[in-house]
């Protein structure tokens, strides 16, 4: 690797570190939404520059050249007193740094930052298969698998300890106990089938802001689950007083108004699972977003479906309530009765900042 490449890769490392520090901010950047895992996204990096004593912005002025009257705005061109070689006037302006990074990498960083556990798929022996890899070391084994380096090291250690080692004549003779052999480990191949069902309340009370919160949260959940399962099915359900299954595009852009019956969505979800996704073969992740403002009369029905059909089937049932002001008797409070059920996770997402924490709550269980 040439020197400049070393410098460049060191620089990239530093940029990655910066991104990780500011992950919370980037996550809520709406531009990232809708990108695929391998897509490179450009995100602005704050100040990888070296600070020095310099003048503040109020002092930044300069001399320019060209037509115009005092008071005229100088385009969007960032005045730059710095100079680059080569063609002046065409040199890029301020060194606004943008790092290119793939969504996959961001998700990886997110996982590290949030300390998200590796997902544990439901134990289903019939689907799970074991593979073996020769990554282990044992004291016994066939000579053909003898690990020469390890054996040598053990012998050296022993001779040093017993004082047999002579630096003038460094002869290392392994004995039986020094021998080390390569061996295999059994690794389960995780079951890779997963389905995510998103349910969103699109009733009149869910505004643009609320949908944005849902969208960003859903995007990162999606990205995370995709990086854990090779094959993720996604289904989208929207509901007001009645529910319908829609495609992704519609899910995020639909405007609707009307009352709210959460049970309608739950019921549809139940049907969906029954027809397509048997809990025996699928890892099921259910995410429900609402502002929590449900018809009071509907709550019992919703609870019943959840308790009897959905919760037993799902790996994880996540409920995110995107309310700015907390309604009393919201669905969140209704679900409080079920709090003890292990695979139910609830959180409130009142603003952008809460998204980060919501994801941690949702995925932190590693189910």
């Amino acid at each position, binding site marked *: 690797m040439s020197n400049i490449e070393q410098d460049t890769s*060191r620089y990239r490392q530093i940029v990655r570190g910066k991104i990780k520090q500011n992950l919370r901010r980037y996550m809520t950047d709406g531009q990232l939404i809708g990108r695929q895992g391998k897509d490179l996204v450009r995100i602005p990096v704050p100040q*990888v520059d070296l600070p020095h004593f310099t003048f503040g*912005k*109020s002092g930044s002025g300069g001399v320019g*050249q060209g037509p115009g*009257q005092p008071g005229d*705005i100088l385009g969007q061109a960032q005045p730059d007193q710095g100079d680059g070689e080569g063609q*002046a*006037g065409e*040199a890029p302006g301020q060194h606004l740094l943008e790092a290119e990074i793939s969504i996959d990498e961001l998700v990886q960083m997110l996982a590290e930052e949030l300390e998200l556990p590796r997902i544990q798929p439901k134990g289903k022996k019939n689907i799970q298969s074991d593979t073996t890899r020769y990554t282990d070391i044992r004291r016994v084994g066939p000579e053909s698998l003898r690990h020469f380096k390890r054996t040598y090291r053990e012998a050296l250690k022993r001779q040093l300890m017993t004082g047999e080692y002579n630096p003038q004549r460094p002869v290392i003779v392994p004995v039986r106990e020094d021998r080390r052999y390569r061996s295999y480990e059994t690794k389960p191949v995780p079951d890779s089938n997963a389905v995510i069902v998103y349910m969103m309340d699109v009733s009149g009370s869910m505004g643009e802001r609320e949908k944005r919160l849902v969208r960003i949260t859903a995007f990162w959940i999606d990205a995370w689950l995709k990086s854990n399962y090779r094959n993720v099915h996604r289904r989208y359900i929207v509901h007001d007083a009645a529910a319908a299954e829609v495609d992704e595009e519609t899910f995020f852009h639909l405007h609707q108004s009307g009352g709210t019956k959460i049970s309608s969505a739950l019921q549809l979800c139940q049907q969906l699972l029954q027809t397509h996704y048997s809990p025996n073969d699928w890892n099921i992740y259910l995410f429900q977003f609402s502002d929590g403002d449900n018809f009071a009369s509907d709550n019992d029905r919703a609870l019943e479906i959840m308790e009897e059909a959905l919760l037993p089937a799902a790996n994880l049932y996540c409920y995110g309530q995107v309310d700015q002001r907390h309604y009393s008797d919201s669905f969140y409070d209704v679900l409080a009765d079920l709090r003890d059920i292990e695979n139910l996770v609830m959180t409130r997402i009142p603003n952008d900042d809460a998204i980060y924490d919501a994801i941690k709550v949702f995925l932190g269980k590693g189910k």
Partner: protein
Amino acid sequence: MSFATALPSDLYAIEQEILGYARDAGLDFPEVRFLMLDYNQINQVAAYDGFPSRYPHWRFGMEYERLRKSYAWGLHRIYEMVINTDPCYAYLLASNLIIDQKLVMAHVYGHADFFKNNLWFAHTNRRMLDDTANHATRIRRYIDKVGLEEVETFVDRCLSLENLIDVHGPGILRQPSRTDGPVNEDEHPGRLPSEKGYMDAYINPPEYLESLRQKQKQEQSKEKKFPINPQRDVLLFLLDYAPLTPWQQDVLSIIRDEAYYFAPQRQTKIMNEGWATYWHSRIMTRQALQPSELIDYADHHSGTVATSPGRLNPYKLGVELFRHIEDRWNRGAFGPEYEDCQDQRMRANWDRQTGLGLEKIFEVRRIYNDVGFIDEFLTPEFAEEQKLFTFRYNEHGDHYEIASRQFVEIKRQLLFQLTNFGEPLIEVTDGNYQNRGELYLVHHWETIDLRVDWAQATLENLQALWSRPVHLETTLADKGIALLSFDGKQHTSRLLQKAAG
């Protein structure tokens, strides 16, 4: 450089041709060696400030990434690069047209002449090519010894203080930071020997002795002040007095040497580029250009001197000012008689047939730097002809806007941004502040405040080198004289003097 290739024969012929024109025109330069690089190599060399090797540091990687991307996106293209060494090395981009190579060669001879003859370069190290390579080796060795993270952090810190040098230092003798030699500890200064006791009061009048003692005391207290005189070369001060390990000292001295090496180039950017542009334009249009190459030449030359509103093009300003000077001295439009003439028309048509233009610009390239160049030769006529203006940042609209077309304003702003590279003037005034070994710096405030968050971050770096608390005295326009301090754990700031009103 191992990967560079020598010139092919057709370019060699061109080189010889242009070299002849340049020598005939009176340019005086050391041998210039041209090397061909592809765009990737030229970006690499550009990231290293023109040198084939530098010490390992991420900022070169950052610059390389930036150059590589902007080249890939077609935003810019490096035509030429030349370094101030003897012999002079210049790089040509292999994918350029022959006409570009001609232009670049003529341009490079201009730079080489400037490097050799301009006074501000007199103290630069012409064997810097070897030295940067040695610096790289030394810093690599330290990395192997104490680890990348530690060396890198230290280099970062040094670089953050890189601009605290004394640009005029190499050229003049400054007052030392500390007097050498033993301090005069004579208990009775000035006492004359008196053999007879009764004469003593006459030979050594007590009042006189007392006054001498007072004087000595004063001088001693002055000597206790450290440094005796404010020091602008903060890096040197740190090298001399900061508690650094040997490797840290060496790294700091490397950073300082390189800062001094590059300083004249920043001091003469406008002149240097102007001079090179003047000569490529003159050589090309008078001699080297073939009729078939005219359009390409005009295109690329105009790209070089193109202006954009928010940015002063040093190529353009420099070449126009040199031409302006040449024209004035050709016409004899200088001296008291011309200066006193108030009649605009007479001034414009002034012609004494003196023909001193060329001679004058050669003199100018020898003795001025950008500050003097602008101070001496920027005229109201020139500012108007070149449509110069000042701009400022508008806080309400978060944009830049044209502030003024007044000559006085333009000149003031230009000089301001050129003086000390448009960076704040900061000196060490006390290396033993409060008699506790704390470092005290003073910023000489001239109407513009420091960027406080960066100043604090820089203080952190300074503190890490000095190891005792550090202080920076500066002025905040709306608050007064403030003292920013960092003691290694936390920042404090207090007002030393409230702003009037």
